[in-house]
């Protein structure tokens, strides 16, 4: 690789293929690994339906309980700002929409670039708050290990480098754009083997949880 254009073309080409391949193989394999363990079918008399309750919980679980809002305020606020910001950056930024359309053939309107820019800054800030909080809050500190900090970094870098690329802060542009794409590829490759899988498995977990509530007639 002799120059930054070669680097950019490499990340936009073969590296993309490899990263997407590892990502999808990993995610699909992990999901099947989980699902095939199965769940015993139950004989007790149900009070309500599992399906509708399971589905409802997938959405309802996004609303926290009032006392948790008080006790877990930092985690909740910074966590939501991060996730919503991530969603906006990933799916409502026009260059990303072009990328997604080229893969799955569907497109939708985006937000103006300066709006996404502002959201990015807020998201980066939220991530830093989450990092600090993870280290100083006793429960999170105790729960956290190498994987937690590593996945934080692997999540932070694409957003940071994307912002740097958009603002053309590093010269030449192909270099910083290439670094951004490479950092995304790192995230993709790491995701299936870490807690980042929650992006997919949370739907299963919330479902199972809600299904139990439904079965037991609990209006959650």
């Amino acid at each position, binding site marked *: 690789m002799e120059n930054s254009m070669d680097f950019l073309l490499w990340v936009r080409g073969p590296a993309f293929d490899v990263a*997407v*391949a590892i990502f999808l*193989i990993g995610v699909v*394999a992990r999901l099947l690994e989980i699902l095939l363990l199965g769940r015993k079918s139950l004989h007790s008399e149900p009070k309500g339906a599992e399906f509708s309750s399971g589905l409802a919980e997938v959405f309802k679980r996004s609303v926290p309980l009032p006392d948790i809002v008080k006790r877990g305020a930092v985690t909740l606020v910074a966590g939501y700002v991060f996730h919503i910001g991530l969603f906006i950056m990933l799916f409502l930024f026009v260059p*990303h929409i*072009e*990328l997604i359309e080229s*893969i799955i053939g569907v497109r939708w309107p985006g937000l*103006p670039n300066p709006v996404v820019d502002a959201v990015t800054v807020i998201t980066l800030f939220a991530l830093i708050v989450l990092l600090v909080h993870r280290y100083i809050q006793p429960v999170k500190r105790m729960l956290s290990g190498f994987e937690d900090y590593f996945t934080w970094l692997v999540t932070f870098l694409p957003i940071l480098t994307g912002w740097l690329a958009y603002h053309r802060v590093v010269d030449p*542009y192909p270099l910083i754009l290439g670094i951004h794409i490479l950092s995304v590829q790192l995230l993709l490759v790491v995701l299936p083997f870490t807690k980042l899988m929650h992006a997919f498995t949370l739907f299963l977990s919330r479902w199972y949880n809600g299904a139990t509530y439904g079965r037991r007639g609990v209006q959650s």
Partner: protein
Amino acid sequence: MVDSITLGESLRRQGVSRRGFMKFCAATASMMALPPSMIPAIAASLEKARRPSVIWLSFQECTGCTESLTRSHAPTVEGLIFDHISLDYHHTLQVASGDQAEAAREAAMHENAGKYIVVVDGSIPGPDSNPGYSTIAGISNYDMLMETVKGAAAVIAVGTCAAYGGLPVANPNPTRAVAIQDVVKDKPIVNVPGCPPIPTVITGVLAHFLTFAKLPELDSLGRPVAFYGQSIHDRCYRRPFYDKGLFAETFDDEGARKGWCLYRLGCKGPMTYNACATAKWNLGTSWPVESGHGCLGCSEPNFWDAGGFYRALSIPTSDVTRTAAAAVAAGAVIGVAAGLANKAKKSAAAKQHQTVTVDQLGEG
């Protein structure tokens, strides 16, 4: 043949007034981002400059670079400077052909040893390629290039083909073509890429060389920073639309007619470094984006393989959909295998369960 008149004398003979000459020197200084205090120095140097011998080698090229250079419809001082150089060898422009042409080249090399400039357009089949892909007078491009640059003062690679390989190196590169800088390692090289380059850029480099007897400041890709130091994106007049998120989505929609940003139609402006957005083409008439077509990125290495002229820069160059489909299938196979193994392990563990009795608990 070289004669001993200076550039100053040559210009005067062609009717360029002192005033006109000084205006040109000021414009040159400004284009090179040099301070006004340099103007007298530029004037003095150019005044005294000897007619350098220039040998122009054309290899795997389309002659577009020469066309670009010679198509100025109004004589400019740059054009006259070009006329001033002693163009001792050029396939398209020279009158001689065959043995006579080659003899002229060799004579120029011999007489001006160490002082002539070699201008190259087109890429060459690499040293490990079949030389038969491109020969001149029975000599392979590679041999002619290496032989000709031996006594050169400097090499100017004009056009993206010479600078980075251009079209011939595009996938699958059947001629195993390489760029000039890939094989010439011991001479100063200036890359003047573009497909073709803007004429004033070519002559500007020559003017710099004539004025300062050295090559201009180059970037990491060997291009003169004066002309290639800014990206198209940073100088594009449509940039406010990019910033506001207003994009043309087809070539004839409302956005296109209103002159909105062409990012979604494949414009490679963000990754491209050239002077098109400021110097423009045809003496400042227009340039691709202004005409409503996205920048191709033609002054960058491998722009032909950069993912399609009409696909946005953020789209990968590989067929990701196909990879994705294959990966999902592979993941399913691996996942089912792993999942079934898990199931078997769980059943085996359950079979190993021995009923817990309170007697056992009591022992515990």
